[in-house]
């Protein structure tokens, strides 16, 4: 600070240019971080899921006007969209057209019979063209989704192998996206990781004293959502603890450590064992029947 350059002087301009160059270098460095690309990839994946759903639903609704029986018979939306885009109008359905789609002979016969007795209306060439295009887009989106999914999986193995191992690649990537990068996830307390994605419930709990959320994004983890209800909070907490450790190891040490997953599995096993039975309701000392609705927070924690 000994030199305080006068605005507009050559010294000032030199200082300004140096500062701009440094700022740009910092920005460039930040934008090349692989974890930030991973965050974009997982968000692209989740976006694609949404588009895929609406597109496939619209295509099947539209096509259903013409051949409702097919929609009933083919549950898999993507397989259905593939057929719509490749075969088109009902009349095109034949043994040959249905070959190689993984249908049993019985199913093929059923489709052909439905074709002949269809309650669907006629469809113009113009309509067929649009529905086919829409269905083709759904198929493309499905391929895009598959590619993104593979990419997230392989990148997570490189960027955050321990988080990928403990949380699973997609859930780990979603946590990273919520936190704002691996560096941020690595400094979050486990209690925050546990409820990332449940902000609405958390703030409602803080404001009204309603019970706090047990899990946010972590609910998607199969160890949580397949567990009986009374175990989920404990499992989510344990999982969050191990993810916090995994993120720190990934960010600061950058080496795989199989002991984290092993410790998690051991702990999950003991939770499942110890809390096999649902907790018994404690009898209310006042003898009154339990109140309906959300339990109120105890007086001393309630906001004034």
């Amino acid at each position, binding site marked *: *600070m000994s030199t*305080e*350059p006068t*605005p*507009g002087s050559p010294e*000032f*301009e030199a*200082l*300004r240019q140096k*500062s*701009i160059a*440094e*700022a*740009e270098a*910092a*920005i460039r*460095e*930040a*934008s090349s971080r692989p974890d930030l690309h991973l965050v974009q990839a997982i968000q692209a994946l989740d976006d694609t899921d949404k588009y895929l759903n609406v597109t496939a639903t619209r295509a099947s609704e539209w096509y259903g006007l013409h051949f409702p029986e097919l929609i009933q018979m083919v549950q898999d939306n993507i397989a259905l969209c593939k057929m719509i885009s490749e075969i088109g109008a009902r009349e095109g359905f034949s043994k040959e057209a249905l070959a190689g789609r993984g249908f049993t002979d019985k199913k093929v016969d059923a489709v052909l019979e439905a074709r002949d007795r269809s309650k669907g209306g006629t469809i113009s060439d113009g309509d067929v063209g649009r529905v086919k295009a829409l269905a083709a887009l759904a198929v493309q989106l499905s391929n895009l989704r598959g590619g993104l999914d593979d990419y997230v999986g392989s990148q997570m193995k490189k960027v955050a192998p321990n988080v990928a191992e403990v949380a699973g690649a997609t859930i780990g990537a979603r946590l990273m996206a919520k936190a704002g990068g691996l560096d941020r996830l690595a400094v979050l307390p486990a209690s925050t990781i546990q409820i990332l994605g449940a902000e609405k419930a958390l*703030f409602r709990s*803080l*404001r009204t004293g309603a019970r706090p959320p047990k899990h946010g994004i972590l609910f998607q983890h199969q160890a949580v959502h397949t567990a009986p209800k009374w175990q989920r909070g404990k499992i989510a907490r344990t999982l969050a603890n191990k993810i916090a450790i995994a993120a720190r190891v990934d960010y600061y040490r950058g080496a795989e450590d199989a002991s984290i997953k092993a410790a998690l599995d051991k702990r999950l096993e003991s939770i499942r064992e110890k809390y096999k039975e649902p907790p018994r309701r404690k009898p209310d000392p006042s003898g009154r029947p339990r109140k309906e609705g959300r339990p109120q927070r105890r007086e001393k924690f309630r*906001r004034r």
Partner: protein
Amino acid sequence: MTRLLREERNGRSALLTMNLAPGKRAYNEDLVLRGGVEFRTWDPFRSKLAAAILKGLPDDIVREGSRVLYLGASTGTTPSHVSDLVGPGGVVIGVEFSPRVAREFVERVARERRNVIPFVADARDPSRYAVSKVDVVYCDIAQPDQTEIAIANCRALLAGSGTLLLVVKARSIDVLKEPERVYVDETAKLEGAGFRVRSLTELSPFEKDHALVYAVQPG
């Protein structure tokens, strides 16, 4: 000639600042000619300083020739108007922590405006951008300890009897406390640190749960 204009627009008062980089926009503001000179419209819904001025904050705090330390430059909307106000003889030291928004700030504001010096840095470390003492510290950062950070920056870089403009972001300090309560508490912190608080301007309807505190550091 003043670098800030007030005029009536659709029955509302509006602010304009004299464009330091004629022909260039910093975002998608309107460029208009007044007396043959180009001005930029200053939207109070996008800029909390404009909101505060419309709600009665004196408009001569940031003036021609001022040296301003701007913490929380973001994409540079408000810094660009501060740059207009201080003019070629003034300085705006713009500090932004997030590289993502700093990209726009550097690209659209710092590069185009010869009185702006950008830093991608943490406002908790004033030594990173200690290039000059300043007359005004403007602080708009979403941190629970934003007031302490602002005070530390004033201690490090604010010239004697300089001014602090602190945007109190009630929801960033405590989501549960009543905003009015937060304003009182943060103002008390400033007074405890020796500042004289001249005014507190609540920014509704332009900005929810925000207030701008105008305080002076004793000389």
